[in-house]
Structure formats: C-alpha cells, structure tokens
C-alpha cells in the first residue's frame, strides 16, 4: 500500500498557542479520511500546512511523496483544496471561476473547456454555468468549489468543513457527491468536520483531533466498538450514588460526566436496562431520565475527552474571542 500523505511529528505554534501538537499518521491512497474535532481543534491549521500555505513550526510531511517544505510547487500541483470559507469570485460566472482556475494551473484551452463541461455536469451546475456566482445558493457554491478543486486532476483533494452551514438536505446531497468522487475517480479525499454523522457516514477512517492532538484514529466502526457496547445515559439527583451502585461486572464502563449525567457502556443494553432500574430503585436512588442508544462518534469523543464536541466548542469560542481581542490590540 502506498501512502497519499505521511505526517511526521507535525507541529504548529501561534505564539504560545500550540494549534497542532506533534501529530503523526498516514493516509492511504484512495481513501476518504476524516479529521474530526471541535472548532479550534487545529483541523484547518493542519490542512494549511499540508497544502503548503503555512510553514510548520517543526516536523514534516509528504503529500503524494513530495515534501511540503522542499517541494511546494510539486505539492500544490498535485492537490485540490476547498477552503473552509468560500473562495469564489462572486462577480464572475461559474464558468469564469472554473476557467480562471484552469488557467492558473496552466491547462491547455481545449483540455480546460472539456473538463469544465464534465465537472459542471458532475456537480449539476451545467445549466447555471453562465450565471454570476452571487446568485448561487450555499450548496451550489460548495459544489462549484468542489468541481473547481478537481479541475487540474489532483491526486489528493482537501475539503475543509465541506458542509458547514448547509441545510441537512443539501448536506446529504453533497455527501453523495463526495462518495461518488472517491468511488469513481479513486481520488484520495481528506475532509475535516465537526459533524459526527458526516465523519461516520463518509469516511473510511477517522482521526479525532482535540486541542491539536490526535486522540484516536481508526475506522468509524472500530472506534465505536471501542466504547464497549451500547450507551446508557442516566440522569439522577445523586450521580455519585448511581456510579457506586452500578459497579457490576456486566457493565464495561461507567463514568460521571461533566454535566452530572452518568454514562454507562455495556453489551446488549436492551436486556439489562430493567436490571439497572431495579438496582437503582432498591437503593432508593431517584431516576430523572434514562436513555439507550447505539454508540456514535460523539460517544467516542466523549469517552476520550470527557466532554461532548459542543461543550468543547463553547470553550473554543471563548478562546476565539480572546484571540480576536488580542489581535485587535
């Protein structure tokens, strides 16, 4: 197996802040690889380094066998990138945006024309090709950006939060495109997201990143299996008592969460839930609510960090505000 990307102890600091902290992993050719983490985890910074837009503080990486530090141009020619924030020229038409890109990547005019046709067809924008981008919806813009990123036939495509801010239907639609691209064109796709479902549905493998560190990396199925079965959440006025009563062998993991909830992992939860309720009742512990679900990547994230992604984001936003304040000074 050849690797599309190899990352070795890659680190990036902004003054005192370690945005990406000594990460190392490989991405296989042809896979859809997800970088999952809350806002401010370091996903965009990682992509910026891999696409040679940002110099690493230390460590190294290769993309398609080329070093990101010594062969910037080689790397750039072999990658396509869809940035987190929109990067289209809104005053130009869809076709003109594509054409600009094709010329920047020095495609011959006949090749350029043919590929633009094909790609606009692929993302179903052919009948809007001569419309100014300003008139496009968020989903259409995203599709156009993906088409543009593919125009120079990159071996690796980076998608930074490709469905951020899109409605669920458009998101679903976009997932289908991305899956299709990977299947039909064999292109390696690295996407970042903070949507659990996106990583789960779309990615062959997922790296969970938090505070610049990779905290887990595996297939979504393996990550979820690692939880130790189904997940039961119990809300009670006395969470500590719940934990002490439920110290039993058939519960593989029990944890009091940050928000006072108790989370339990166990196999075949449906069969055991009545026993759990009985045990708590016989010890006179009140139950406010109890819920069971199959493990999701959210549970995986929770089990590694003790917080949900949303809670992390709330902290992240506070950091972000601080950072903006600092920049203003």
């Amino acid at each position, binding site marked *: 197996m050849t690797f599309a990307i190899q990352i070795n102890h890659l680190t990036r600091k902004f003054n005192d802040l370690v945005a990406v902290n000594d990460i190392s992993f490989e991405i296989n050719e042809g896979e859809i690889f997800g970088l999952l983490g809350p806002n401010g985890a370091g996903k965009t910074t990682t992509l910026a380094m891999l696409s040679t837009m940002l110099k690493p503080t230390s460590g190294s990486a290769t993309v398609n066998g080329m070093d990101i530090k010594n062969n910037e141009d080689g790397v750039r020619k072999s990658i396509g990138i869809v940035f987190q924030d929109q990067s289209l020229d809104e005053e130009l038409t869809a076709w*003109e945006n594509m054409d600009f890109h094709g010329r920047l990547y020095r495609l011959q005019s006949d090749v350029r024309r043919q590929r633009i046709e094909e790609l606009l067809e692929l993302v179903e924008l052919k009948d809007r090709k001569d419309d100014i981008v300003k008139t496009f919806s968020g989903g259409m813009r995203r599709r156009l950006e993906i088409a543009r990123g593919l125009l120079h036939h990159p071996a690796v495509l980076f998608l930074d939060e490709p469905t951020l801010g899109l409605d669920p239907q458009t998101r679903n639609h976009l997932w289908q495109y991305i899956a299709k691209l990977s299947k039909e064109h064999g292109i390696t796709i690295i996407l970042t997201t903070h949507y659990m479902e996106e990583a789960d549905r779309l990615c062959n493998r997922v790296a969970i990143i938090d505070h610049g560190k990779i905290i887990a990396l595996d297939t979504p199925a393996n990550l979820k299996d690692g939880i130790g079965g189904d997940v039961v959440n119990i809300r009670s006025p006395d969470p500590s008592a719940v934990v002490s009563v439920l110290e039993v062998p058939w519960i593989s993991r029990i944890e009091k969460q940050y928000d006072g909830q108790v989370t339990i992992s166990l196999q075949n939860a449906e069969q055991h839930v009545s026993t759990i309720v009985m045990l708590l009742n016989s010890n006179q512990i009140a139950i406010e609510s109890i819920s069971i679900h199959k493990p999701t990547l959210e549970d995986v994230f929770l089990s590694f960090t003790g917080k949900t992604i949303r809670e992390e984001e709330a902290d992240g936003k506070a950091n972000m505000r601080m950072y903006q304040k600092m920049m203003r000074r």
Partner: protein
Amino acid sequence: MDIIYTIWLRSMKRYIRSKSRIIGSISMPLFFLLFLGFGLNSVVQIPGMGGDYITFLIPGMVAMSVLFTSVFSGIQIIWDKQFGFLKETLVAPVSRLEIMLGQTVGGATTAFIQGMIILILSIFLGLKSGNVLGFLIAFGFMALIGLAFTAFGIAIASKMEDMTGFQLIMNFVVFPIFGLSGALFPISSLPPFIVPITLLDPLTYGVEGIRYGLTGVSQINPLICLVVLGGFTVATTFIGAYLFRTIKS
C-alpha cells in the same frame, strides 16, 4: 506571462461588470471640469501658458481619474482577502510575483480606461489638440501613473487587514497627492513654501507629462517627467511585489 494575463483578464471582467463603479469614479473629475473649469474659466488667467483655465485643468482631471482608479484597484486585493478569493490564487502553483504583476497590469488598465473616458469627454468640453504624437505621449504618462499607483495600492493593501483604514489612506495620502500635484494650479503661481512639496509629489510629473502631451506646454521638461515618474513606477512595483510576498494566506 499567461498567469499575468489570467489575472489581468479577471480584472477586466470585473471592471466591465461594475457599471456603478465606472460611473462613480468618472463623476468627480467630470464635476471638477464642469464647475471649476467653466466657473473659473473667465476669472482665471493661466500666466505664460496661453490657453484658458479649462485647457489647463483637463490634464489634471485625466491624471486624477487615473490616480483614484488605480489606487482603488490596488487596494481591492483587501476585498479578495476578505471574500476569500485571494486564497484560491495564493494556493495555486504560481509565484507571488506573477500574481502581483497581473494585479498591477489589471488595475493600471482599468485606470487607463477611466482616464481615457475623461479625455474623450474633454474633447467635447473644448480640448483642442489634433496632434497624434501628443496624445501618445499623454497615453504613456497615463499608463505610468496607472502602474505606479496600482502597485502603490497593492503595497498598502498588503499591510492592511481590512477596509477600515481605507478612508484614512484616501484622506491623508491620496487626496494630498492629488491636491499637491499641480493638477489644479500651475506650479509657478503656488506660494514658494509649497513648491518643494509639489516637486516631491510624483503625480506632479504625471500631470505635467500629460499636460505637455495634450497642450504642448508644461512647466517641467517632459523628459524629466518621464525619468521621475518612470523611476517612481519601478520603485512602487518593487515595493508592492516585496510586500505582497509577505501577505499571510
């Protein structure tokens, strides 16, 4: 070359589509020409230059039009930064120098066209020059002003985070450059303490060069104008290119 052309082409497409900008930036020099020109025509006599005030004013207004459009075009890369488009250009396997030169030539071209519009309108307002060589000389100076000040705008934009400083730059840099340039008044009739400042203003040499081309008379030798403005253009292009390289994507 093809990259410079690509970026130039984009500038042209955007320019052609921005009707309001085209009209907006013609209106001020046109306003000056009509009100100052006709208003002062009978009052003001330009010593030693034969013609009337409006003939004196036309080259200044052409230069003004080119100046404002070019600075604005250069500073526009801040919009590209804010709207994210700059990233698309910066991540491509092309050199920053090519991008910067493309922007410069693109901005200079729009500025040149804006100047041409004023020039053509001036013919209807009484510009009397049938001399082809004179026009070519004026075109040359217009192009130099366009290149120099687009590069100047790019240099400024490379150091700015957003458009908040734009008004400041306009009020404290661009308007003084225009006001001190001898576009409105002949250098010889300025108070003596202002003359050295006027001679330090690079636009003065552009205005005088255009004036020589269009009216056949100027207070500064056109060759000196060419050397000074040419030197300034080279300098701003170098500085602009250098600062553009430091832009963080």
